[in-house]
């Protein structure tokens, strides 16, 4: 039961503060006085709804009657009921959502409908979103490190195997021909697929750079910076783009696979060639132009809008102070992509990113 109190007037502060009115309702003092759904109030609400037979059966009018709280208007109840209906999951289920679903809008919804979260402010939700983003960046960084470690390990395996083979071959035939099968399928297989002399780092750089220039207008400097971070471990993997019609594999292996690239190129978290990949792009059409070093990883960070994108843009702006949408054409340089946190927030690891 709310006990009436003298309303404590508060001067306007930076953040919306709450006052308790006569009816015991908590209202905010920002320019638009909004009802604060405290835990107690929400519990009453839930009680009333249950009494009335569930959120689908209950109507704002009946709820109002049952709750009997003064000052509570139909308008308040309508919107609250709608949110309640839409999703009664508590915020912690947010972790179950796929990354694509982790749009700010979804957060608001799931937060808004959860009983425990009703009292959270927008700020807290912003924090949640940013926490998620940060986590994703961490994951990305870890992924790269782990991939590198794996590559290093495999490299040692290959070297060992190569030595063994070389030893065998010397014993067996006495002549060490580079290519050709010579009846040693193992060696042949490896030679066939490229030299095992892991190339100089520069070679790979050039190779990768050319490749990317072909497809992404990516600046060399950023790529170099990226590669420099990764020593010479890698996957040599570049993402092909079956959709842009180039058809050929970005690996440009002359005839076939080159093992050298496999063993020791930089771990490339390559940009995705096709930024307009389905609905992940709806959120931010301006940013997803070709020619920017879009990362597939950045797509992961995109909040897929649960609903239409138009309303969403505004919410994005509200949600994150950092979310400034610069001009649609963004330079491929990594640094510039830092600002739109939510959108493509993720800085691909190693791209001159302060997240290092």
């Amino acid at each position, binding site marked *: 039961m709310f006990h009436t109190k003298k309303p404590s007037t508060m001067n306007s502060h930076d953040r919306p503060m709450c006052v308790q009115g006569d009816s015991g309702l908590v209202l905010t003092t920002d320019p638009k006085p909004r009802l604060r759904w405290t835990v107690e109030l929400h519990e009453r609400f839930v009680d009333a709804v249950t009494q009335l037979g569930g959120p689908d059966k209950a109507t704002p009018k009946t709820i109002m009657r049952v709750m009997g709280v003064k000052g509570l208007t139909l308008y308040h109840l309508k919107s609250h009921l709608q949110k309640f209906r839409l999703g009664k999951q508590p915020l912690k289920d947010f*972790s179950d959502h*796929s*990354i694509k679903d982790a749009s700010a809008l979804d957060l608001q919804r799931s937060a808004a409908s959860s009983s425990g979260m009703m009292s959270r402010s927008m700020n807290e939700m912003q924090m949640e979103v940013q926490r998620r983003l940060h986590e994703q960046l961490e994951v990305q960084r870890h992924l790269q490190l*782990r991939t590198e470690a*794996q590559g290093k390990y495999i490299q040692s395996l290959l070297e060992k195997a190569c030595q063994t083979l070389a030893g065998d071959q010397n014993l067996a035939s006495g002549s060490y021909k580079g290519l050709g099968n010579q009846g040693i399928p193992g060696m042949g*297989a490896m030679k066939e697929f490229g030299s095992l002399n892991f190339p100089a780092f520069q070679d790979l750089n050039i190779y990768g750079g050319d490749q990317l220039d072909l497809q992404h207008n990516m600046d060399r400097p950023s790529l170099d910076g990226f590669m420099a971070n990764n020593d010479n471990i890698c*996957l040599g*993997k570049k993402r*092909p783009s079956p959709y842009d019609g180039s058809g050929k*594999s970005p690996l440009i292996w002359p005839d076939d696979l080159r093992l050298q690239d496999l063993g020791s190129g930089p771990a490339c978290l390559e940009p995705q060639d096709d930024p307009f990949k389905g609905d992940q792009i709806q959120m931010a059409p301006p940013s997803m132009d070709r020619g920017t070093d879009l990362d597939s990883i950045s797509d992961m960070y995109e909040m897929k809008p649960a609903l239409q994108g138009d309303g969403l843009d505004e919410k994005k702006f509200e949600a994150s102070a950092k979310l400034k949408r610069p001009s649609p054409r963004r330079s491929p340089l990594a640094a510039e992509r830092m600002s739109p946190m939510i959108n493509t927030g993720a800085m691909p690891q190693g791209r001159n990113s302060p997240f290092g």
Partner: protein
Amino acid sequence: MAMAIDGAKFELDFSSYSSTTTTTTTTPATSTENDHGCNWNDWSPMVDWEALSGAQDDFQDLIDSMMDDGALMNQSIRLTVPDTSNSMSTSDTLVVDEETSCSDDLKGLRLVHLLMAAAEALTGLNKNRDLARVILVRLKELVSPNDGTNMERLAAYFTDALQGLLEGSRSIHSNKHLSATNNGPYHHHHRDDPQHHQNDVLAAFQLLQDMSPYVKFGHFTANQAILEAVADDRRIHIVDYDIMEGIQWASLMQALVSRKDGPPTPHLRITALSRGGSGRRSIGTVQETGRRLVAFAASIGQPFSFHQCRLVSDETFRPSALKLVRGEALVMNCMLQLPHFSYRAPDSVASFLSGAKTLNPRLTAMVEEEVGPIGDGGFVSRFMDSLHHYSAFYDSLEAGFPMQGRARALVERVFLGPRIAGSLARIYSARGEEGCSWGERLAAVGFQPIKISFANHCQAKLLLGLFNDGYRVEELASNRLVLGWKSRRLLSASIWTSPSDPDL
């Protein structure tokens, strides 16, 4: 399956295939249109078609699809030089380019139908070994494991596998026998030198790893779950069912070493199961892996020790054979996905998992191939499912690396081929048994799911993002991530823990 130009002739041809005893010699002078070498005119009527008429429905579909093919075939046939060469490749080169893709599809479709017919003949209602043999012979002429489209190469391995089944079932019908012969004519040259086989395997593994996310998906998902489960432990003990080259642990060690806040780097102990005999799971190989892991761990400063647990000859895992240390967090790791040759001994896997249950580990990681809907559970439906499954694999590799045909052929030869043969053998001998996944079995015996964390899911998505767009990851259950290609689910990674039963 001769494609007759004349519409009226369709009836005749296909009716001969399905129900009447008229042979196929009544085809018109279609020597000019031997649809890519499948010249049925040359077949003497040794097969009693009537005896095959049991499953008429299947053949009706077959007929319909062929009739559809016929219209398209007309155009492509006109362009072929009217010689009666029987080789696929000749006709291939003669077909004009714009017809190629559709004729590829047609060829593929035809191969599928042939395979299905062979499978049906082998095990269907009207089993007919001879028919199966005939179909397989025909298939062998049409396909090669090294050339042609995905479907053709895939069909080559399936043909091979079916051949193995055909021959194997004639002799002593045992699983082990089948798996010994499963490699077929395409693989025998590897048997003589284990070292070279090893290198082939290594090269193919490297390629597989780079061309697709299959390997990493399993490893990284399991590793992430392990990391989270042992976050506060000082000692970790991992029992690995099939360590192979130990690649999974390189990244785990790196992750352990670079944990920022929290306890200092825990001590990692890995016990790998090894089997007798030679080959990739032999004691010698496992020891070698152990040495490499030790060296790697030393290079990054990870406290590490390595042990082997020898399986007895029947490959049953006995938990008592493990050395356990008090206070260590026990993890059971069971990787059954692509590069691991798990099909050989399902009993062994079962024993591993039941042993795991008694040991009460902190976490059990299971990565396996995802099976499709079983259908009626019969051989043919599972066969077709298997065909779709591997076809998706092939497609995924090709989509990513369309030009690297030779590389893919190597991967197919080393990994996919044997796997196909083995899985068909398993299906064949397990007909009628319900084939649920290992994950389901774990749940059935009481393992509890551990939720896949946000970070883990995120990592999987990032990983897939590095590859082709066609890959996707789904969270089918709270503890299960499934990697799929387009609409086909391929790999499943699930995380379990023992029920916290105090009585255990």
